[in-house]
């Protein structure tokens, strides 16, 4: 333990033990426990207790009947647990009867504060920490604590109840870990006392008529099979699977969700022989007995299993497909290709049954669509995947939602009425539709998809969320609609679709909702990034007003939209797709966008657009955008000047990123011209490449980087440090054998830097010679600085000393500023 902390500890313990003192908030006590845990990872708990008697005093203090606050009681229970996790310290505490006094029946259970959930929670967490060794097991068995834990499983606090279940599993695992071995594993009667007690309790609970008790037992088992993969779990399942199977014979089946979780947890266990233990039969039986809504998660879980019989997989997949099959059956007008589940053993589910409750039906559809979406992306995805009927069903659902379906039957009409305008289903169907783009679909169905997407994009009823999801699905379909492998060109149908899409996009760019304008711009940016280079795409784009509108949105009142517009306009310009096409005769229009961006960078009051501009600028610089390479130096100098005074540290950091790109490029160029860097021995290089370094001074890139090195925002300083290190390493090979301070100018620079360090920023470095810059670069301890900056800027405030000081300083003044918040 740190000597300073050791010095502060007695005072803190005294404060904690004093009921008259108000202790700082719960977060302090939590952090204090974190600290003790860290200390005890490296130190012996027993020595710690013996070296700091104040700790033992605090722990024993709680045993005396006093009005100690529940939060301190809870803290002490947890602290004792942490100490007692080491067996020698456990023995020490037990000798002093402290453990029984706290965790026994005469301890915390008898306190008035026991009715506070935080105290019960502390009691459980304390036991959980100490239950690490055989002595702890004996203690738990003898003290009656296990019975209390059983009772706490039904605690009114969710947190306490859940922690109690977890603790039982922890104790069971600990007991079995050292208690049973070899042949005794299969003999439950030979299991350690503690384990037997827990298993008996679980078995009794499974026979209970009260659902909460059954649920508790199932939860304990689920966690056990999820966490413990030793052979004894096989014996456990062998013993408890009959009462679990009995639960299926009850009507209604109790605790369905927990039961399903248990079956899946058992099925995932690597140590059980499922064929022998009848698990597959149990799963099959459950799937057929449950309602579609209940069976959905189980079906998905079953399909995710590694070694599952094909028959069961088919059954599970059938459960998932049922609702969509029903819809398809009810809405198919003429006999066509086989739908979903046709020809398989009949399902009793009908649309009539589904429609009996609207909210249940909507819930089931959303769940089914989400499950299928998840399934399609998994390696365990069923094969063959019924792509065509699934796509048909999804398109039908979307048509039912937007009201464009033309139902011929009365059931179809009822479906229309139920799903019409249902945003929840629409959202889920659009997500799934996007995922379905990964499969191969016949052309007429792809056209059908495009048509429903257009309809949704066009509909005035579509909400901003629905539109966003439609844009996302559209993008995925466009990306996957090409037929030629390894070719990113758009298919002719996709191009036709684009022709219809752009006028709609145009409308959406003028939406009164910023969410819609923004999603439309994001979509446009993606489109250009993918297909901006294609002539057909360009033509379709230029036949619309989309590029002009995108540029107009640079003046949008909403900053998010302005930022997205910057991204879109930047992409347009990169691909030569800007509103007014540039020609060698008319460079002003293009230059106009650059100036617009510069204007945003220096005047926009919000950070997002300024950050977006820098992202675009960096990309332009990297890709050699025509306007940038026309006068790169001017460009970089202007950007750095604007950025250096920006109040948003992320803008300043991106400025450094841009500077770095420039450096790399300039060095590349300079190495081409510099005869000294390549091919010639270093000794013959008389000086750094003067032109390159002059440029850096002129820009002034050095000044910008030095200034950023002292930035009050850590990431900026970190980035500047990395940049200067890079520069120093690169220039070493170019530089001569000069030493720091050689240059006549460097002393003045050092003086300026010193002033900066003292806080007087804003003073320019002045005109500096490259030699002076290099000298400073070499004289700075950049590695040391990098190490310092790697630590979080609040590491001092976060330290244990700081915590202890704060807790002590707060004593007595809490009343003044009490209970204040926002």
């Amino acid at each position, binding site marked *: 333990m740190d000597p300073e902390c050791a010095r502060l500890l007695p005072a803190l313990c005294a404060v904690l033990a004093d009921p008259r003192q108000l202790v700082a908030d719960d*977060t302090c006590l939590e952090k204090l426990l974190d600290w003790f845990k860290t200390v005890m990872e490296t130190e012996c708990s027993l020595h710690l207790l013996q070296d700091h008697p104040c700790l033992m005093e605090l722990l024993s203090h709680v045993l005396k009947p006093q009005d100690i606050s529940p939060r301190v009681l809870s803290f002490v229970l947890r602290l004792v647990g942490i100490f007692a996790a080491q067996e020698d310290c456990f023995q020490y505490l037990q000798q002093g009867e402290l453990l029984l006094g706290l965790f026994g029946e005469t301890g915390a259970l008898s306190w008035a504060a026991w009715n506070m*959930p935080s105290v019960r929670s502390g009691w459980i967490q304390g036991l959980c920490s100490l239950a690490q060794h055989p002595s702890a097991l004996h203690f738990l068995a003898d003290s009656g604590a296990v019975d209390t834990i059983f009772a706490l499983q039904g605690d009114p606090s*969710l947190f306490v109840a859940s922690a109690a279940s977890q603790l039982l599993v922890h104790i069971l695992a600990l007991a079995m870990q050292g208690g049973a071995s070899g042949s005794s594993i299969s003999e439950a009667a030979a299991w350690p006392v503690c384990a037997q007690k827990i298993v008996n309790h679980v078995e009794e609970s499974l026979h209970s008529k009260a659902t909460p008790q059954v649920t508790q037992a199932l939860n304990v088992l689920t966690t056990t099979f999820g966490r413990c993969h030793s052979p004894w779990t096989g014996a456990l399942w062998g013993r408890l699977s009959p009462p679990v199977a009995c639960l299926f014979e009850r009507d209604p089946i109790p605790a369905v969700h927990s039961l399903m979780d248990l079956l899946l947890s058992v099925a995932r266990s690597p140590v059980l022989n499922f064929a022998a233990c009848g698990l597959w039969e149990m799963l099959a039986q459950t799937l057929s007995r449950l309602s579609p809504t209940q069976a959905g998660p189980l079906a998905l879980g079953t399909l995710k299993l590694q070694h599952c019989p094909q028959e069961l997989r088919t059954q599970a997949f059938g459960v998932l497909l049922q609702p969509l099959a029903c819809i398809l059956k009810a809405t198919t007008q003429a006999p066509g290709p086989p739908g979903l589940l046709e020809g398989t053993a009949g399902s009793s589910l009908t649309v009539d049954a589904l429609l009996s409750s609207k909210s249940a039906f909507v819930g089931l559809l959303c769940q089914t669509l989400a499950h299928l979406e998840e399934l399609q992306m998994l390696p365990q995805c069923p094969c063959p995947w019924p792509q065509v009927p699934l796509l048909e069903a999804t398109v039908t659902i979307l048509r039912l939602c937007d009201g464009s379906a033309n139902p011929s039957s009365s059931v179809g009409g009822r479906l229309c009425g139920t799903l019409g305008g249902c945003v929840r289903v629409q959202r889920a169907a659009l997500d799934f539709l996007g995922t379905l783009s990964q499969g191969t679909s016949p052309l007429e169905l792809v056209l059908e998809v495009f048509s429903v997407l257009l309809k949704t994009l066009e509909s005035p009823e579509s909400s*901003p969320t629905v539109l966003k999801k439609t844009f996302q699905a559209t993008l995925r379909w466009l990306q996957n609609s090409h037929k030629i492998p390894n070719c990113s060109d758009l298919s002719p149908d996709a191009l036709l679709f684009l022709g219809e899409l752009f006028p709609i996009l145009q409308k959406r760019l003028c939406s009164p909702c910023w969410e819609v304008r923004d999603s439309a711009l994001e979509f446009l940016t993606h489109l250009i990034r993918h297909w901006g280079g294609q002539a057909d795409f360009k033509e379709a784009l230029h036949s619309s007003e989309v590029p002009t509108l995108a540029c107009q949105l640079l003046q949008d009142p909403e900053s998010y939209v302005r930022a997205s517009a910057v991204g879109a306009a930047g992409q347009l310009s990169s691909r030569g797709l800007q509103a007014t096409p540039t020609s060698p005769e008319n460079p002003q229009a293009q230059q106009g966008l650059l100036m617009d961006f510069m204007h945003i960078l220096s005047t926009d009051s919000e950070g997002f657009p300024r950050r977006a501009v820098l992202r675009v600028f960096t990309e332009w610089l990297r890709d050699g955008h025509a306007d940038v390479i026309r006068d790169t130096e001017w460009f970089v100098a202007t950007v750095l000047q604007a950025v250096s005074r920006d109040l948003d*540290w992320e803008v300043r950091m991106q400025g450094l990123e841009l500077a770095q790109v420039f450096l790399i490029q300039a060095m590349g160029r300079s190495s081409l011209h510099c005869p000294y860097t390549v091919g010639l021995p270093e000794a013959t290089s008389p000086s750094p490449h003067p032109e390159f370094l002059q440029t850096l001074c002129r820009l002034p890139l050095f000044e910008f980087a030095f200034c950023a090195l002292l930035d009050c925002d850590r990431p900026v300083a970190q980035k500047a440090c990395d940049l200067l290190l890079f520069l120093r390493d690169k220039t070493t090979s170019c530089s001569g054998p000069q030493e720091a301070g050689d240059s006549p100018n460097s002393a003045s620079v050092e003086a300026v830097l010193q002033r900066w360090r003292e806080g007087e920023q804003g003073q320019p470095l002045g005109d500096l010679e490259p030699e002076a810059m290099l000298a400073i670069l070499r004289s700075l301890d950049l590695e040391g600085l990098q190490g310092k900056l790697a630590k979080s800027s*609040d590491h001092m405030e976060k330290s244990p000393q700081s915590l202890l000081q704060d807790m002590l300083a707060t004593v007595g003044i809490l009343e003044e*500023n009490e209970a204040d918040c926002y």
Partner: protein
Amino acid sequence: MPEIRVTPLGAGQDVGRSCILVSISGKNVMLDCGMHMGYNDDRRFPDFSYITQSGRLTDFLDCVIISHFHLDHCGALPYFSEMVGYDGPIYMTHPTQAICPILLEDYRKIAVDKKGEANFFTSQMIKDCMKKVVAVHLHQTVQVDDELEIKAYYAGHVLGAAMFQIKVGSESVVYTGDYNMTPDRHLGAAWIDKCRPNLLITESTYATTIRDSKRCRERDFLKKVHETVERGGKVLIPVFALGRAQELCILLETFWERMNLKVPIYFSTGLTEKANHYYKLFITWTNQKIRKTFVQRNMFEFKHIKAFDRAFADNPGPMVVFATPGMLHAGQSLQIFRKWAGNEKNMVIMPGYCVQGTVGHKILSGQRKLEMEGRQVLEVKMQVEYMSFSAHADAKGIMQLVGQAEPESVLLVHGEAKKMEFLRQKIEQEFRVSCYMPANGETVTLPTSPSIPVGISLGLLKREMVQGLLPEAKKPRLLHGTLIMKDSSFRLVSSEQALKELGLAEHQLRFTCRVHLQDTRKEQETALRVYSHLKNTLKDHCVQHLPDGSVTVESILIQAAAHSEDPGTKVLLVSWTYQDEELGSFLTALLKNGLPQAPS
């Protein structure tokens, strides 16, 4: 049995972060999604794994409602929607939707700045989260789905803060969020109508406090600032981007104007423009005075408050600077503090709460030697002041709101256990309603007896009125008709209309009873004797003797028949419809007593 269940995941007997799960008749709503500023790890967010043990969050939760833009109420939202995976609707007021992302962004930048936290939500996530928001107007009833509706009421506290009524069928819950029952410089007082919810979930920050007038605190604040600048000192006021900062700005601006002061006031990070923009946009949410004077002069267009440049901090002479963040834990406010801390002429005023570990917390707890990075010790000689400007209802205000809404029961959140306990007793005594105060993770279950609204057909109502019985609102009335349940609505109609609507044929159901009489005469004579007896007894009823020998009284039919085995006994068959059940029973009883002796 329908019920309301409430489980706080946060704000249950604490003020850390609000997140309350409410379930009303199977609809699940999450109220607020706050973050705890006191933690730097996962503990800062509520444990969302407790929301549902099975299934997806989006399927389980019907919606999320955010009461206002403070981070302890909305700070976990991008984490919840973009990282945990909730994809359903989020409701908040328009100003909250506008301001929320600014504060989230502010916090994100500090978190990433200070710790370089990689596992934190990004700007893009904040934006994507805000796109899921459905903004609501005050007093607008918003239909979340067919059964669930919500309505926002004005809460004061901060710009755009709202209380929400959540209604499923006839059951409703009101959640106050944070509110203020007294108007301040720029906001009005909270108000709700007498909506009589089944449950009122109210904050209880100042459960035991009667707060002094805010005017005194304001006067103190101005006096301290003025004195400092008068003696040439600099004043630093660390604030969060939006909220309390604007209130203090108005305060200083007005004071500077009145006193004709020339000392510069600066506001960092370009937030003045932003605040100006939002306050202009949402002027209807401010108080009456600001709205009234808006035409002549917009209170949020500050004459004396200028944008801050980093270089200004080194300028000589007095000045006042508002800088972010509010707890002096990073960035600009901390940088300025470090520059100015050594001069006793200067002053720092902390206008809000600071969490442990921050420099703000340290100096407020009286620490004057702060260890900074690199073993540097910063000696704080400048004056340190704390001014609470938080705008919560005090005990009186909470009682006032309970009285206003007239709930059937009350549940306290966002407060300390001890103080809640005091207020709980007070509410139970004064209003004679149950008051709950669950801890985090504890569920309160309230059984409700739902009243089911039933529409009545015009025909039936008219028939009632013809009978001279005018409906009275407060008097329960018995009405006969047929209840039709169709498309999840209930209607009471006349039986004829019900038959017509449902396309059913009418069947008449008659009750029958046999009465044995000792009478040796023929059946026709017995019937005649019955007729005479009834004619004499039932003077007000229409008693008829029909040609087929049977006797009728209203709908009641009586026929006499011979006993198959005993010729001295006659059997009277009495039958009646349910409408005449009373009369039928009476007649049967009467006949069972036998007939009067016939005159010989």
